[in-house]
């Protein structure tokens, strides 16, 4: 009775195998393609920021003698840096922190932050403004900094609430001489998360409320924001 059973058509199952291999590697290729596109996107943003910083620096050099208000180094710029930070950390999560392309982008990003930090400091000094900057050292290494993720959320929230704040975040373990110099200038110890606010180091997790206490200007800013929001609301209601 054995002849009754359908024979295994080897050809069909080999074909299925070939298709499966193609789909499998197709998925791999597509995934790599998207990663590359993203890395290119981040690089393009970084290049743009680099150009902006260079432009601001040049503007600063040109206008040394005149009014400081003419210097266009706006808060929109800080937002650009922060959205870049979100994209970078996403890529780092997806491709792993050992990925060479991601590490390079991160180094580039850190350098841009330092340049922006220096420029902002110079502009503020000239115009006599008290700087509103937070320098943040974190670590992604497993088990090295349990609170860094939480601190990251707090800083993102603050940055969203107060676009005037400039948050510069650095991976404590990043192998880049400029970052190492930054660490030694600020005298940061390996007790993460570490925040430098007005040249004063703060170690350990700080909530948004604690940070608002440390930076008293935030209260004023909040009031200003609320006043502006109210004004906008009345403007729209009178329009109606």
């Amino acid at each position, binding site marked *: 009775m054995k002849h*009754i059973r359908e024979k295994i058509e080897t050809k069909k199952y080999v074909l299925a195998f070939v298709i499966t291999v193609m789909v499998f590697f197709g998925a791999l290729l597509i995934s790599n393609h998207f990663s590359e596109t993203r890395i290119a996107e981040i690089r393009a943003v970084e290049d743009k920021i680099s150009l902006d910083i260079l432009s601001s620096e040049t503007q600063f050099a040109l206008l040394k003698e005149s009014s400081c208000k003419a210097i266009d180094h706006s808060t929109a710029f800080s937002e650009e840096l922060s959205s870049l930070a979100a994209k970078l950390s996403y890529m780092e999560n997806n491709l792993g922190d050992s990925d060479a392309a991601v590490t390079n982008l991160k180094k580039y990003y850190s350098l841009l932050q330092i340049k922006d930090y220096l420029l902002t400091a110079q502009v503020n000094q000239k115009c006599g403004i008290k700087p509103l900057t937070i320098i943040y050292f974190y670590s992604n290494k497993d088990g090295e900094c349990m609170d860094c993720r939480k601190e990251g959320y707090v800083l993102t929230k603050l940055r969203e609430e107060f676009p005037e704040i400039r948050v510069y975040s650095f991976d404590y373990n990043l192998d880049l001489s400029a970052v190492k110099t930054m660490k030694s200038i600020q005298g940061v110890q390996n007790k993460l998360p570490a925040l430098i606010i007005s040249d004063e180091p703060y170690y350990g997790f700080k909530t948004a409320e604690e940070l608002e206490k440390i930076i008293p200007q935030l209260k004023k800013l909040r009031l200003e924001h609320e006043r502006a929001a109210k004004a906008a609301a009345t403007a729209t209601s009178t329009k109606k």
Partner: protein
Amino acid sequence: MVETFFDSILYVFLFFTLYLEVVFLITFFEERLKLGTEKLKEKLSYYPSVTIIVPCWNEEKTVVKTVDSLLRLNYPKNKLEIFVIDDGSTDQTWDVVQKFSKHPQIKLFRKENGGKHTAVNFGIENSEAELIGCLDADSFVDKDALHEIAAAFNEDPKMMAATPMLVVHEPKTILQKMQKTEYHMGAFLKRMLSPLDAINVTPGPFSIFRHEVFEKIGLYKKAHNTEDGEFALRMQANHMRIRNVHTAQVYTSTPNTLYKLYRQRLRWSYGTMKNTLDYRFMMFRREYGILGMITLPLSFFGVFIFLYNFSFVAFHAVKVVIEKAIEISTVGFMFAIPKASLFFINTDFMAILSYIFLGLGLVIILNGVKLAEGRVSASSGIFYFLFLYGIVAPIWFIRAVINVIFSRGTSWR
């Protein structure tokens, strides 16, 4: 390192699963012209005599409806007899069926309780018909079902058993709607296994056998409360052809609560694994065709693969939930809402593979719907199946694996 190791195992499993999906879809392509859902309109050249056995144990509520559906079958009255066998019911079943005692097509039997398979065996021993089938008292047949099956037997003299298309009867709860889609998918897979001679179960509701099958390989025997599975495997071991007739529809009631579903599925998955172990000599043997190479390995190892993939997904889901919870507790709900941006759509290798699986899975489900209902239509069941099945199925699979390891039997109810 550890993560890479577990990831690699997952990739191997995903590759196999994808391979199976591709095999099914190629078979679908080969079979595409034979998948019409139109019923036969013309009369058959020959009507084989048929006995349908209705085993009942405490089925006072449903048995009349089941028998009525059999009486409505589009089949010559003198060729169809119905055996209602009361397997020692303790409720009013015997009294309820007395209304059929004078019916010329119906014979009533009453025996001591011995389990469903003993009632069916009792019927088989008392039948002289050419075709013998059984219909559980919780199921109802479409009026053309027997006509379609008889036509298939006429067409293929080597076919020894026919399995019908099982459809969920009036799904009401979310779990029943989920099962409806599950049955649709099962219907598609059964239909694809059919031409490959790789069906491993002849389900209780309305599987029909040639009389000679029982003469050659004997009657049903006790087999981990899944006698239907054991019988199909015994037929396969004897190289007897089992085919699926997708135009023969049978409506079956499904468990409406999680506990009832758990009990039923635990019995099924435990029984399937145990029967597969009992017939393991066919596994990976080329002479048993695709049954030996795919169906049997899948019905045993599939559970482990499913559970592995499930734990992987669950592990990552829990991780995401914990992270989100930390984020919400740190900055509040409003700030934890993710920003919508194309940049953050997951295009990992694993994610893209999942999209492909989901896509192919939907193709299979929708073709199952088409096979069962004659047209493609989206229903809430598909949604429940995709999002709920992965969560509930591990409950019985884990228990079934534990029971198999410690050889703990299951009960019928």
